[in-house]
């Protein structure tokens, strides 16, 4: 994957734009672009963590029990 940054036009809520500009003004972000870059990096991390949590739990599921529950649901839906 290229390290070169790409240009992107986005539309954001006014309060989030104001917060991003505040981060820049107070020196907590180098630019508004950097602030949104950081936010997306954080979201990507959180989403990966959540997917991993779901996978870990579903790996512990009893597949036969899950199949029985699905069959019972199918029977009720067919009524």
């Amino acid at each position: 994957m290229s390290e070169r940054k790409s240009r992107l036009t986005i539309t954001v809520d006014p309060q989030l734009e104001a917060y991003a500009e505040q981060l820049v003004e107070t020196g907590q972000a180098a630019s508004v672009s950097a602030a949104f870059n950081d936010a997306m990096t954080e979201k990507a991390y959180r989403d990966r963590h959540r997917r991993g949590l779901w996978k870990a739990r579903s790996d512990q599921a009893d597949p036969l029990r899950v199949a029985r529950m699905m069959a019972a649901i199918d029977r009720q839906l067919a009524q």
Partner: protein
Amino acid sequence: MTGPAGIPLILDTSVLIAIARGDPDIIGLVQAYDSRAQPLVIPALATVGASLDARSEEADDLLAGLELLGHATAAPLRGVGQATRLADVIARTGLDPWDAHTAAVADAAVCPVLTLHPAKWHEPGAALDAPLHIIEITDPDDPEGSGQLA
């Protein structure tokens, strides 16, 4: 085969609580539905109820993980019209806001509700103009019933 003709299934608070508590079989069930492209609906206020029950970061991560599934959609409470419709459902059924939002979504969309606790829906369901289609998540081989998991 589930959800005839791809009819969305609505998850109620009891199912979301089981997910928030990390119940592997319920999470496995939801994941299996998603892998079969079965549309699932998550009422926003039912999620509030589940989060209040569990109160942990991991529980909230598990609940938020629902939205990362390919075929699950959150049903928000949007606008004054939906808010007053929810108030009407609460007044008529006596349900708490978490379950009442599930009932309001099911009533408007005419979709079945998946639950671990079907008994709680009997009376409220009858108070609505059209009866709700309540589907119990149960394991026929479990004498205790899978509702005991939640």
